[in-house]
C-alpha cells in the first residue's frame, strides 16, 4: 500500500518531464511543469503521513511548494502573453532572440 503512491509520484514526474521536453506550445510546457510539482507534493505528503505523523513537516513544505508554484505559474503566463502579443505565435522553438 505504501509503495503505490510513490510509484504514482514517479509516473507523474516522468510524464511531466516528457511533456515539458516535447511540447511545442508554451502553455503546455507550463502545464507539465505543474505536473512535476504535483508529483513532488504527492511524495512529500505520503512520507509525512507514514513517517512523521506527529509533526507534519512534509505538509508544511507542500504548502510552500504550492504557493511558489502558483506564483511561478502566474509570472510564466504573463510572459507567455507578452510574447504572444509581440510575435503572434506560441511555438516555443521560435523564441530564439536570446540565442548567440
Amino acid at each position, binding site marked *: 500500500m505504501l509503495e503505490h503512491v510513490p510509484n504514482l509520484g514517479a509516473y507523474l514526474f516522468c510524464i511531466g518531464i516528457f511533456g515539458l521536453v516535447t511540447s511545442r506550445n508554451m502553455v503546455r510546457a507550463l502545464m507539465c511543469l505543474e505536473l512535476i510539482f504535483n508529483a513532488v507534493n504527492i511524495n512529500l505528503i505520503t512520507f509525512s503521513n507514514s513517517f512523521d505523523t506527529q*509533526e507534519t513537516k512534509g505538509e508544511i513544505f507542500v504548502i510552500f511548494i504550492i504557493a511558489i508554484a502558483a506564483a511561478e505559474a502566474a509570472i510564466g503566463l504573463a510572459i507567455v502573453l507578452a510574447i504572444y502579443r509581440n510575435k503572434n505565435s506560441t511555438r516555443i522553438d521560435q523564441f530564439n532572440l536570446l540565442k548567440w
Partner: protein
Amino acid sequence: MNIIELSEPLHEIIFFLLEIGVILGSLGVVLFNNIVYSAFFLGLVFSCISLSYFALNAEFVAAAQILIYVGAVNVSIVSAVMLINKPNSSKMFPSWAIGDKITFLICSSLFLLLVSVISNTPWSNITLITESKALLEVDFTKNVQHIGYLLLTQFLLPFELLSIILLVALIGAIVIARRENFVKTNRKRELQIKKDFTVF
C-alpha cells in the same frame, strides 16, 4: 485522526480509482493536440490528487490544493489558453518526431529506474523504527491548528519570505502583462499617446 473512517477494501478501491484518474488525466495533458482538452484534463489531475490527499490524512493541504491549484492556477491556464489558442490541426493526437521518441525512451527508462528503487527500499523497516519512536513522544492529534502553530514558530522566516514572494510575483505579473501605451509625435510636433488595442 481520519476525516473519513473507511474499511480497508473501500479505501483501496477509492485509491485505485484516484490513481486511474491521475494516470489517464496526465496522459491527456501530454498527448492531446487540442490544448483546451489538456487544460481541462489538468484540472481533473489536480482534483484527483486533492482527493487522495484527503485519503492520506492531509486535510488542510487537500483544501489548499483545491483552492489554489484548481481555483487559481488552472483558471489562469485556461484563460491564457483561450486567449492564445489557434486551432490549426484536425487530428486528435500529434505525430511524433524522432526527438519525441528518444525522449519517450529516456523518460520510460527513468520511470523504470525509479520504480525499481522504490520497490527495493525496505519500507517495513523504516515504519517499524518511526512507529517505535512515535510511541515515546507526546501523542496529540495532528490537525490544522498544529500546522498553524508550526508555521508561526518554527517556520516563521520561510512564511514571511513566502508572502514577499507572492507580493513580488503579483506586481511583476501585472507589469509584464499589461498593454503598452506608445508615445509618439505627430505632424504638428505634439506628443500623442496611442493605445495598443491588439490584445484585449
